[in-house]
């Protein structure tokens, strides 16, 4: 019986690969969107305009304080009530982008705050405008502390993308859920799902660790 199910599972492997494709596409799109959004918010959180700072803080707080499941329900069920019709795919990418953006903004804001204000002042007296200061002075330095946790955040994003299966998108988790209705061997089916996620996430975890080793500056001792 076990072997029969195993053969069945092997036969439906292409279905799993389709699920991997969905997971990868959704993650990739929201990863790019989330990074752009996160950098914008992270820069905005260090701004001198108080209203901007506070409203961004409230946004980030809401995204970090509520489960992603609730957020995706809000996007998927409530937005249509406000007249914004989103398909499952769009809702998934949209909510993942908003979610990732909030977390990435914390990383970016933290990275920027490690740069001493003297750098900004020096750049100011050098006559650089706001954008030049950010692009040529702050960011090149801030990228060092930002990069390792950023890659770590990508891993979290890929794992959290499994939640999009609840709104009917056939990602790897959803494929596993559908398959287990036919092949009642949960350990085998979700073992395979786990292996597929592992093969996506583990290299990224290693990359993050490698970045951390390469990019961490030894603290100056007095």
């Amino acid at each position, binding site marked *: 019986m076990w072997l029969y199910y195993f053969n069945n599972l092997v036969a439906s492997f292409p279905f799993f690969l389709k699920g991997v494709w969905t997971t990868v596409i959704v993650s990739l799109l929201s990863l790019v969107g989330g990074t752009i959004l996160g950098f914008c918010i992270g820069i905005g959180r260090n701004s001198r305009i108080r209203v901007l700072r506070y409203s961004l803080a409230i946004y980030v707080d809401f995204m970090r*304080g509520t489960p992603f499941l609730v957020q995706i329900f809000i996007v998927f069920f409530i937005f249509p009530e406000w007249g914004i019709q989103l398909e499952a795919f769009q809702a998934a990418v949209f909510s993942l982008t908003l979610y990732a953006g909030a977390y990435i903004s914390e990383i970016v804001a933290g990275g920027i705050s490690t740069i001493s204000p003297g750098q900004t002042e020096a750049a100011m007296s050098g006559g650089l405008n706001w954008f030049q200061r950010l692009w040529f002075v702050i960011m090149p330095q801030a990228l060092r502390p930002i990069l390792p946790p950023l890659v770590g955040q990508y891993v979290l994003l890929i*794992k959290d993308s*499994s939640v999009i299966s609840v709104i009917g998108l056939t990602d790897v988790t959803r494929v596993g859920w559908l398959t287990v209705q036919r092949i009642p061997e949960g350990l085998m089916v*979700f073992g395979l799902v*786990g292996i597929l*996620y592992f093969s996506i996430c*583990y290299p990224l*975890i290693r990359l993050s660790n490698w970045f951390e080793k390469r990019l961490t500056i030894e603290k100056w001792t007095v």
Partner: protein
Amino acid sequence: MLETFNFRVIIEYLPQFLLGLLATTWISLISFMWALFIGALACMGRLSHLRILNVTAGIFIEAIRSTPLLAQLYFFYFGLPSLGLRLSEYQTGILALSLNSGAYMAEILRAGVQSIDYGQIEAGMTSGLDYFQRLRYIILPQAIGATIPPLLGQTIVLVKDSALLSLISVFELTRAGQLMNSERFMPAEGFFTTALFYLLMYHILKTFSSWWRKKLIFRPAM
């Protein structure tokens, strides 16, 4: 948007939400204690000189950390019955949550232990303390203070992750919101109320965490 918000129905459903809040708190509390226990075991394994323990703990931690909680939840939910193990939804959920958080806590604890200078352990050895005495009198008192904030951070993640238990029909906070959505077609009221309660828990934990961080600064040992 707010003028269409139906507060009467929210008040009508408030007992459900409070029950959900209680269930979420309860589930998180039990899972937290198990996770801490599992985390301590896995951390001890990871730091052990015994190769088998070291490798087993390493595989456990990496496997959990590179697969999504939802896949793990389904793995146990659909998988355990085929092993002849019949657990209730609550038990399955708590099992998955504890194992998941346990792996992350193991890494946090390991970072805490490794932040202690090895000379301290050697000094303990030469004073004739055995393994548990060294743990009890030298390592833990120093490691615990610094690990509390990241452990609380992981607890916030745990509380939010417990929302996924609603997908295996455990009644908790998110389920209460879903109930309101399916019975009254009021997703906005339901999910925003759910979000509000999560935010409440998030802020309590966050306040406690920053209070502890402030307290740490004044500790001479740090």
